[in-house]
């Protein structure tokens, strides 16, 4: 196993090179660059744009730009953002806490609720609980997160129970940590709930179908016939067999923790990565985009590795060498 993990680490290098190269290539394909925004402004002459382009190094051929970037990366630098004139690492690092806070709380909420409920639902399919949850999941799957978010904002506006916009109130900056924590949580509830609702429906349906599938397998019947207690049954057989696709999904979810949810963040005014990256992509802020992609890529690869390791531990069938 250790050897396998080490091998995976070695594998990461070509993948990261592939990702960075593809991203740079896409940049070539996408028309224009960061300075194109200025090109339709009567107040900015093309000469000035050309000078800025040279200043930013955007006039260099693509391979030169790429190797310069790789060389800087080796030194641990991600370059400067064109629009903020600030180091990309600083921009990204400053967004990390808020992004993680939102992502982790929504993942915990979604998985913590969906998995136990799905097992229960699968045990008693078409019971009142299952019927209710299934209908709810249809709704949350079908409604785009953007609409859920707008509904959330409307709720907040009508009732005044929740703040709209930002991750903290301006007045609490100098208060004690306890007040600040409560204020944070107050701001977090709606966005986290919105994100969790969206993925809960999917999780519930996938998990329920996996569990029901496992329940019908011959070994379950055999185990039940051997008179094992239902709780042991659930722990030892059912859960391990049903969880396989979920583990892979969980890995993907881990990988997405730092990507942020652009639209939800935008509607709630949550200062996370999604908004930052969406803007960076739209304005073609090259090094910021590359920084975001590489951060996301490392997270994704790590998440996939974690899920492969989990799969290896939890699913004995995967472990056997052929």
């Amino acid at each position, binding site marked *: 196993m250790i050897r396998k993990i080490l091998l995976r680490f070695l594998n990461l290098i070509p993948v990261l090179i592939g990702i960075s190269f593809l991203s740079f290539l896409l940049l070539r394909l*996408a*028309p*224009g*660059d960061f300075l*194109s*925004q*200025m*090109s*339709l*402004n*009567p*107040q*900015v*002459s*093309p*000469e*000035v744009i050309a*000078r*800025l382009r040279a*200043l*930013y190094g955007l006039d260099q051929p693509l391979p030169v730009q790429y190797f310069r970037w790789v060389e800087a990366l080796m030194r641990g630098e991600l370059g400067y953002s064109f*629009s*903020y*004139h*600030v180091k990309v690492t*600083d*921009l990204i*690092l*400053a*967004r990390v806490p*808020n992004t993680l806070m939102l992502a982790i709380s929504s993942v915990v909420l979604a998985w913590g609720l969906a998995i136990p409920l799905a097992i229960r639902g699968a045990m008693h399919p078409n019971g009142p609980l299952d019927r209710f949850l299934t209908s709810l999941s249809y709704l949350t799957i079908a409604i785009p997160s953007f609409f859920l978010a*707008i509904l959330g*904002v*409307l709720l*907040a*506006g*009508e009732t*005044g129970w929740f703040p*709209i*916009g*930002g*991750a*903290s109130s*301006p007045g609490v*900056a100098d208060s004690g940590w306890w007040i600040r924590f409560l204020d944070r949580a107050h701001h977090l509830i709606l966005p986290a709930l919105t994100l969790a609702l969206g993925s809960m429906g999917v999780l519930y349906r996938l998990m329920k179908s996996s569990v029901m599938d496992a329940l019908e397998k011959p070994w379950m019947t055999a185990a039940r016939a051997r008179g094992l207690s239902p709780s042991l049954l659930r722990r030892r057989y059912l859960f391990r067999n049903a969880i396989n696709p979920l583990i892979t999904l969980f890995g993907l979810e881990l990988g997405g923790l730092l990507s942020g949810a652009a639209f939800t*963040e*935008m*509607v*709630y*005014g*949550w*200062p*996370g990565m999604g*908004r*930052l990256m*969406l*803007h960076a992509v*739209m*304005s*073609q802020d090259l090094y910021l985009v590359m920084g975001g992609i590489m951060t996301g890529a490392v997270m994704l690869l790590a998440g996939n590795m974690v899920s492969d390791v989990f799969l290896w531990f939890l699913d004995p069938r995967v472990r056997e060498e052929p």
Partner: protein
Amino acid sequence: MIFRWPSAIRKTALGSVMAMGFWGCSQSPVATVHLVPRNPVTGGHLSMDILSDPKTFNPALASETSSTQILGYLFRGLTRESPQDGSIKPDLAAGWTISRGGKRVTFFLPHDLRWSDGEPLDGRDVLFTYQDVYNNPKVATPIRSLLMVSGKPIQVSLKDNYTVVFDTPVPFAPLLEELGAEILPRHILSLAVQNGTFNQSWSIRESPGHIVGSGPFMIRRYVPGQIVSLVVNPHYTPPVGLKPSPGCPLPCLSSIDLRIVGDANSQLVRFLAGKGDLYGVSPNELALLRPAARPAAFTLYTRGPGLSESFLTFNQNPRAPIPAYKRAWFTSRPFREAVAWAIDRKAMISIVLNGMGEAIKGPVSPSVKAFYHPTLPVYRHDPSKARALLRKAGFVLKRGHLYDKAGHRVEIVLLTNVESPQRMLMSQIVQSNLRDVGIKVRVVGLQFNMLATNVMTSFNWEMLLFGLTGVTDPHGDAAVWKSSGFLHLWNPREAHPQELWEARVDRLFEEGSLEMDPVKRKAIYAKWQEIAHHELPMVDLVTPDGITAVRKTLGGIRPTPLGGVVPHMTQVYQKARIARS
């Protein structure tokens, strides 16, 4: 809301509420500057929402509204534009004289000006700003293009510490307006210029205490993605001629909070829920706000058409990769005139702007009184006139489809930028209007950068629905209207004017920039407007009325055509605070 260009380099009038920007974000360690209020009489606190983070606190580097709006509170230039009529008034300067037949402008500075950190502000700062920053090729500033006259930079020199002399090779009428560019503190920034780190200086990660300005407010706190807090600048000296609100100094407010809320829907909900004092209303939101305004605690101010514009233009460029027969339609004046008559601007106003707008008659907005041509007629909706014009030009209408002389079906791709729902709607109205005269239009919405590349670089487009940043001085439109201009959209950077009328427009713009007498200038630009109206390289569409919702608790609101309902944030106050004191 009509999409605004990410760049309003010219100093925006203080307090105009920008309701559209880009999504943005940023971070910095939160730092706080504590200040003792300088005056017991204060007009209280104001808060409003903005759509995106500032990108930089450096006015020389800022190029989009999210930064320039905030910087407008922090910095000032030598001159300012009157929000009433666009005329030029002194800001930091006490006054100026013009000599040598318009080739020299001498500015006099008051002796008591101070930066917000208490250091004196004088001519050396002005010299530093223009010589070492704006004219420095190593500085990434887009402002430089404004400060070139006949291809040469403006010469700046000091007579003494309070007298600054600007010399231009030829008389340059718009110079005073250009000198509204923000003045920067030499004692803070000269080191960065020497070290070559100016392009990274005063970034959003800078501690607010280090950002030293001359405007009415200064930054107290910036939390990325959440809030920019401003407090009053204790060393602020109001410009000559600006009157304070009764019973209150300038600025009257003691602090301003700008909350960053990235979504227009959320901003609207927040405003309706009582958060924020000002809200820039886009016309379609009126349907929701007007019924709510009567019982609620806010007033809607409508201030008539502003500078924002929208137009249709056609690709007349011989270098464009489009079929020659299509180019032949676009270069034919009767064809363009037919399109102008075919457009139903009334429907556009009613549908896209909820009735709150006006048809545009010519290239100068009616709010710019100094140059507006009042007697140009508007192209009404008249499809039969359009059809007659097309028939006279040799086009044939067969079973509802229009064909040219050579038998080509008249079919046009109309590009616009997809970020603006208004433009997408207007494009569909154009599509339907032109279908009535037999022209088939395919609407394609492109993302802004993609559109810019197609229009400016590959010239691969046929018809375009668009709008450019409006300016008050017509000379600001030179890049669009001169045949050699880079934004001469229909045929950019011509070596020689392709049409006779283009040569005439070139000459008029040349004369206009050399003429220092306002009356003669107006006459020159009136001729240009007549040509533009007749030749129609751009078919003007509609412009929205600017509307702002203001809480009833707010005083000092003075709606102006160019500067919004709050032309001077310094005059605003909370009524309750002033009444008490």
